[in-house]
């Protein structure tokens, strides 16, 4: 599904990612953990095609094809989805309008017919249930006046509607109380399929109690310094990031 090889990225001339290697197969859930500023969001942004980053070395293959050359909207239509750490507000644009435009863009790419308003509503109602959102959310302006938890749930709703092949969830757990976390995780779990891959970016292992990953990687100073199974997250929880930082500073190697 996704092959990241020796990915090096700079922004404003400052190296952020320093040789990332990561291989994600169809149906796998990978967690990427790491302290603030370690480059997690940078990785998510580069994969989804955000401006402002320079790839200085390495490559990324998505379904066997070079990903980094492509425009962000092409990646999105082709199944790459990013749940944003900070979802933006778009005043005056209703949630349902954005959802429908997005879904139809994706469907067009897949060679499917665009949904009309009726079919779309029926489709969306089902998806709303997954994240326990009320229909009134649809008519509100995108993220405007949403609480932190509502914004994150809205991201998962979009993911449910767009049915991506590769979903990257950037700190989807941050700022959530325990109920909201349970709902969001439930939504994500229901979207786990043998075809769909996910990358969970998180600072805390808490999320991983709800969404159990197949692999856990630790990112520090722009490198994956440790990789392992679920237990790595628990170890991290116990020992904290300072332990990793030291390992990183001591030239700790990635052990995939």
């Amino acid at each position, binding site marked *: 599904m996704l092959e990241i090889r020796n990915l090096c990225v700079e922004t404003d001339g400052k190296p952020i990612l320093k040789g990332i290697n990561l291989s994600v197969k169809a149906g796998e859930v990978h967690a990427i953990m790491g302290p603030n500023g370690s480059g997690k969001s940078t990785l998510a942004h580069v994969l*989804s095609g955000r401006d402002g980053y320079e790839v200085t070395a390495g490559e990324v293959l998505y379904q066997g094809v070079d990903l980094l050359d492509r425009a962000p909207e092409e990646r999105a239509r082709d199944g790459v989805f990013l749940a944003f750490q900070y979802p933006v507000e778009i005043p005056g*644009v209703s949630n349902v309008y954005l959802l429908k435009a997005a879904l139809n863009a994706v469907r067009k790419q897949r060679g499917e017919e665009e949904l009309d308003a009726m079919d779309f509503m029926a489709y969306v109602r089902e998806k709303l249930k997954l994240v326990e959102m009320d229909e009134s959310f649809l008519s509100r302006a995108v993220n405007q006046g949403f609480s932190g938890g509502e914004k994150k749930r809205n991201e998962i709703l*979009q993911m449910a509607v767009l049915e991506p092949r590769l979903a990257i969830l950037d700190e989807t757990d941050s700022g959530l109380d325990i109920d909201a976390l349970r709902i969001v995780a439930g939504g994500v779990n229901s979207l786990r399929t043998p075809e769909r891959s996910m990358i969970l970016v998180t600072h805390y292992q808490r999320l991983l109690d709800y969404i159990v990953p197949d692999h856990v990687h630790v990112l520090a100073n722009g490198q994956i310094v440790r990789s392992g199974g679920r237990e790595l997250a628990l170890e991290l929880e116990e020992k904290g990031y300072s332990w990793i930082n030291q390992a990183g500073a001591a030239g700790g190697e990635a052990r995939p």
Partner: protein
Amino acid sequence: MTTATDPYHALVNREYSEGFVTDIESETLPPGLDEDVIRVISAKKKEPEFLLNWRLEAFRHWQTMREPRWASVHHAPIDYQALSYYSAPKSDADRPKSLDEVDPELLRTYEKLGIPLREQEMLAGVIGGNVAVDAVFDSVSVATTFKKTLAEKGIIFGSFSEAVQTHPELIEQYLGSVVPVGDNFFAALNSAVFSDGSFCYVPKGVRCPMELSTYFRINQANTGQFERTLLIADEGSYVSYLEGCTAPQRDENQLHAAVVELVALADAEIKYSTVQNWYPGDAEGKGGIYNFVTKRGDCRGDRAKISWTQVETGSAITWKYPSCVLRGNDSIGEFYSVALTNNAQQADTGTKMIHLGRNTSSTIISKGISAGKGHNAYRGLVKVGKGAEGARNYTQCDSLLIGDKCSAHTFPYIEVQNPSASVEHEATTSKISDDQLFYCMQRGLDAEDAVSMIVNGFCKEVFRELPMEFAVEAQKLLGISLEGSVG
């Protein structure tokens, strides 16, 4: 009422003995403007004497006036003596022979708007007997159905010239009663030489059963550059009027100076919606239309209400301030506006709310969008007279900038002579952020669709005032007008 015609005809013949008569036959006057030209126009239209005198008075006024200099727009000087002031539809020689000769940019826009080929030909002014005739037939039949329904309610609706013949007393009573002949330079010029336009009278207590639109849309295509519209809503009546056409129109006339007068008597309501999409010219503004319009509504009776809703995306230069005179007690004025300028377009637009009656209230929502090198100014006056006890105004002016070569300016003028008045003004300027764009693109929208969606969101408060069908067209139009402004 046509008795006055003959003497003028004679006069015309005398004054223009050299070749002019044949010119009259061919329905076009040579360039230039003087009193005789006005007499010819009036005679050609078989106007009653009061109207000729009114035109002449306007002309005399105009001669003493100067073009306004204060608007925040710039253009090369207009040579008023180089224009022709009476001209039937363009002569075939000037018109494209087929769509192949029409600016491909324009055609692309028509296609995007989903306009049928034949209508495209009509809008682009292509020669072709069939098309024109069909269009006329269409409009005649539509007009007839409309007229029957309207006539049953006692509503008078049709071209201005027609109304001059059939209801001269209404014209004499109301024409110029809202926008006097000497009101401003362009209004005076229009009053002197106006060609045609629309007239509507809704009798007491009648609610006009349809949006007055389709008919006008077809009827309007060739009304020319000096359009005159007069709408009267008698006591307790209601009318919603849609002006304009959402397809960009090609026109040889560079200067457009229209006047619209609305009169709402007690308890009457007029809703006037415009989508203005004149040709803005090429990327440098060349060939675009100068649109200098005077629009004013008079809430002449108590509890009268007038709403202006406008979406302005066209013209090289727009100069336009739809206004309300809130004369009746408890009368209400509203102004909802979206003005978009892209490339080299300039817009100086806004409104005037003149509070004269007690407990009058007004709302102004203005959304200015500038892209490319566009230059957008909001100019608004809220005036509260001495007697306007308890007057209230709320003004909200939002500007949205796309790119960094465009500009937006806000000039709010507030004059309050009554201490009990409450006047509130809010203004914001924002940019479409990279975060917003990326968010939409990450959901699969391309940059242009993303911008268009964000802009439409920005305009929502105005669009929801438009009749449904118009709103949909206006949204599409904004998207098209913004093409090429990002990426």
